[in-house]
């Protein structure tokens, strides 16, 4: 019973075709009668295919990195780090008598005046060992050492900060799932302006806050009596200061300690803070966010508002953290996020590579926080300067003419196939149309965003689909000419052309997979994805589907003496 096999093949083809039609034209909800009208189909098609920035447009955001803030923070941090490096020494010659920091109006410098000015070389050396002062000019006068950031160095640092901010923003929106944004400098490189365009996203406000989110994580030692005594907190800043003798030394910091409320009602964001208390921590931090390798939002119970963030350190951070926790068992440690203590706990045992930010986060805040932690901290705050939605960067009218020209080209191909291969041309046309339908369905399925490079991949895929059909048909013609009967010619034609088709397809798939892996997240990847899908599907449509149609023909007209090819 030869027909049974044919029916099974036909059933497989029909099922896959129906799934393809549903994926491309169907709604992602219970269908209504409106989904079967022309308008409904068009609306569903538009909703199912994600078009990229170049084809559909999206948001246009101009933001500015507050570079003055950045330089100010760098100056202050360096000043603090330098002073703590000096005061770490017990040598009486390292006694700091006075210090000052300037960080405004384009002047960035800090200095330390030592009580004993005879040992400046050694002091400067000690500072250099602990603090990276590569861009800073060191100068001395009397018993004072000053470090100043010159204008050229300021520009270098500004450009670096913008580049870093661009990278972090890109990684944040990529992780969030925005496909193929464009990020470019706007204005002079030292203006700190960044122009970001991204294709339509569901929740632009969330993306905006994600981009600008600060995520400075630090693990710091709390100045407190060790466990089992409870952690020492102070009700006010002044009380905390008083405990330090009235002034905060360079190696100490006072930070607010905000414990989180239990969620009061189901679904309510548990983000309100309890009346804040303060703790005193040691500066600099044991480890900071730059040492993070991974961060993840997890929930023990799965309940809304019961999320924590766990994180892992890179090897270098894990080493530092392990050494420190080993020496500080039963001491209190603070998990500090954006200069606010999120949790304080004593060290039970030596910990190496992981930690947790406890507190009761909602799922979304925890996920966003984990994402921003993973991408690293922005060098400074970001302010939005301009916001608009924009049309496609290729221009709506040129896309229309491009689509029309491509459809015209496709019609030309179909007409030629029907004219040149007659009856068999129908096979080719069915295979081609099915190939396009299924490739787009596959793109919908993997939620890929279609951009012009993706369309180029589609064109190459379709071109190779046409080629597969031509290879098969030309081969069948050759076998017919060589004197074989029709069934044998079809058999030989498919068998022989299949070897060629497999070789061409595997070659292109291999190179596309390499393109995908080495091409980074941009246009190259979009090209590779559509091409790989198109070729895999072509092996199905050009060989399996086309063969099935031929077999039907043979089975229905067994005594066929002349073949329409």
């Amino acid at each position, binding site marked *: 019973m030869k027909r049974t096999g044919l029916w099974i093949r036909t059933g497989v083809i029909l099922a896959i075709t129906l799934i393809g039609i549903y994926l491309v034209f169907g709604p992602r909800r219970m269908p209504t009668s409106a989904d079967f009208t022309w308008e409904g189909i068009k609306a569903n098609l538009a909703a199912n295919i994600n078009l990229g920035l170049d084809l559909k*447009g999206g948001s*246009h955001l101009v933001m500015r990195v507050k570079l003055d803030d950045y330089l100010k923070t760098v100056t202050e941090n360096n000043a603090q780090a330098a002073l703590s490096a000096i005061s770490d020494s017990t040598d009486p010659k390292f006694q700091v008598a006075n210090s000052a920091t300037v960080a405004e109006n384009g002047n960035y410098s800090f200095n330390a005046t030592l009580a004993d000015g005879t040992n400046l070389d050694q002091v400067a050396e000690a500072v250099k060992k602990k603090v990276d002062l590569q861009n800073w000019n060191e100068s001395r006068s009397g018993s004072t050492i000053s470090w100043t950031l010159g204008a050229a160095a300021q520009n270098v640092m500004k450009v670096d900060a913008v580049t870093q901010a661009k990278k972090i923003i890109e990684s944040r929106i990529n992780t969030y799932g925005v496909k193929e944004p*464009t990020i*470019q*400098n*706007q*204005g*002079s*490189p*030292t203006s700190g302006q960044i*122009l970001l365009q991204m294709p339509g996203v569901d929740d632009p406000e969330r993306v905006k806050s994600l981009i600008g989110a600060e995520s400075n994580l630090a693990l710091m030692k709390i100045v407190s009596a060790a466990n089992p005594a409870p952690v020492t907190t102070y009700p006010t800043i002044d009380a905390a200061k008083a405990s330090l003798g009235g002034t905060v030394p360079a190696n100490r910091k006072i930070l607010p300690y905000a414990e989180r409320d239990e969620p009061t009602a189901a679904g309510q964001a548990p983000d309100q803070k309890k009346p804040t208390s303060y703790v005193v921590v040691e500066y600099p931090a044991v480890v900071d966010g730059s040492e993070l390798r991974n961060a993840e939002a997890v929930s023990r119970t799965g309940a809304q508002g019961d999320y924590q963030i766990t994180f892992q350190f890179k090897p270098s951070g894990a080493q530092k953290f392990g050494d420190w926790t080993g020496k500080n068992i039963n001491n209190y440690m603070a998990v500090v996020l954006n200069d606010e203590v999120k949790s304080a706990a004593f060290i039970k045992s030596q910990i190496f590579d992981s930690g947790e930010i406890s507190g009761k986060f909602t799922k979304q805040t925890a996920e966003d926080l984990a994402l921003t932690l993973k991408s690293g901290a922005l060098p400074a705050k970001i302010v939005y300067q301009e916001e*608009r*939605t*924009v*049309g496609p*960067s290729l*221009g*709506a*009218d*040129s896309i229309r*003419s*491009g689509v029309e*020209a*491509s459809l*015209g*080209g496709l019609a030309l*191909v179909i007409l030629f196939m029907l004219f040149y291969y007659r009856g068999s041309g129908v096979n080719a046309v069915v295979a081609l149309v099915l190939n396009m339908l299924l490739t787009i369905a596959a793109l919908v399925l993997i939620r890929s965003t279609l951009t*012009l*490079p993706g369309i*180029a*991949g589609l*064109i*190459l895929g379709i*071109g*190779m689909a*046409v080629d597969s059909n*031509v290879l098969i048909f*030309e081969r069948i013609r*050759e076998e017919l000419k060589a004197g074989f009967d029709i069934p044998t010619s079809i058999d030989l034609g498919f*068998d*022989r052309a*299949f*070897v*060629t088709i497999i*070789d*061409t397809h*595997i*070659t*292109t798939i*291999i*190179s*596309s997979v*390499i*393109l995908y892996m*080495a091409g980074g997240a*941009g*246009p*190259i990847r979009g*090209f590779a994805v559509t091409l790989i899908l198109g070729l895999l599907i072509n092996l199905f449509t050009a060989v399996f589907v086309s063969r099935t149609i031929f077999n039907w023909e043979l089975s229905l007209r067994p005594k066929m003496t002349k073949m329409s*090819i």
Partner: protein
Amino acid sequence: MLNPFDNFHFDWLRRRRIFIGISIAIMLAGLASAVGRELAPGGTDSFNMGVDFKGGTIVTAKFRNRPTDDEIRDALNKSGVGDPVIQTSTNRPDEVLIKIPLLEAETNPEGATDQDHTLQVQAGRAEVKKALDTFGQAAEGDATLDSAPNAAYKIIGTDSVGAIAGSQLRNQAVIATLLGLVGILVFIAFRYDWTYAAGAVIAVFHDVIMVLSFFSIFQWEVNLTVIAAILTIVGFSVNDSIVIFDRVRENVPMRRHDSLFEITNDSINQTLSRTVITAGLVILSVLALVVFGGEVLRSFSLALLVGLTLGTYSTIAIASPIAIWWQSKLGDSKIKDVLAPAAKGEKLASSSRRSVTRRPVTR
């Protein structure tokens, strides 16, 4: 049954020196254009890089009656600003964003000083203003469209923009493509022979260098879409080469007494109908895109047109001669191998899975 290629015979390989000569001539012209333009004082760059690659000026204009994108593009082209990117502002329909490439070829956007930027922005603004003045008067200074009833538009913002695709993306594209070619090389060597792999990959290089030559000689704009086009060209070129190699591989065991030279020539002719139909259809479709696809897709469609045409040509004119030439260099010591496998010609498909064996090359 239509078949215009029945019993077609043409001695392709005999004319290989002519083909290779033509290719080398075009590549030399491309090289001369690229180097000449770079070195000539006050000349243009080797390539006409678009906003995507080198940045430029972004001008935001607000219109009283907004012309279409095409009208704005035409106006800019007429006043000498090539290849603008025009983006509508969908939430403010009377405003339009116009990006034009850097005007002075010498300015390097990464290393430019603030002063360069100011000059650049002023020059860009002046250019755009000159073009937009064809739509009517501009509202200057503090005047708005409301306070100046005669004004047709107002430039509400100007700034310089950096490249979207910096050197990073360009390098990534080049490295990824080269790695992809290594993959192709290894696979063809595994399925056929190293000599064939080398022929196919050299043909790919030929195609890409030729396309770049055309872009340099005619100063077509290089933008992000050209990268996509080049990736497509590489794919088609390799595809074409494999189809012919596959036929050679099939013919070799059946024609043990013929030289590889003749077999390859015949293989090219046997597959010629397929080559002409496939290449013809694809090239015709791309030609439709060139003619009717509009200004913005021009770089993309031109690159495809040139590249796909050359891809077909290079398979015959470059890939096959190189494969054979290399075989002839290796040939002598391997002749014995040819006699070893006995050809079974009854069923074509089975005999062809054998790898290509080296055989003498005459001429």
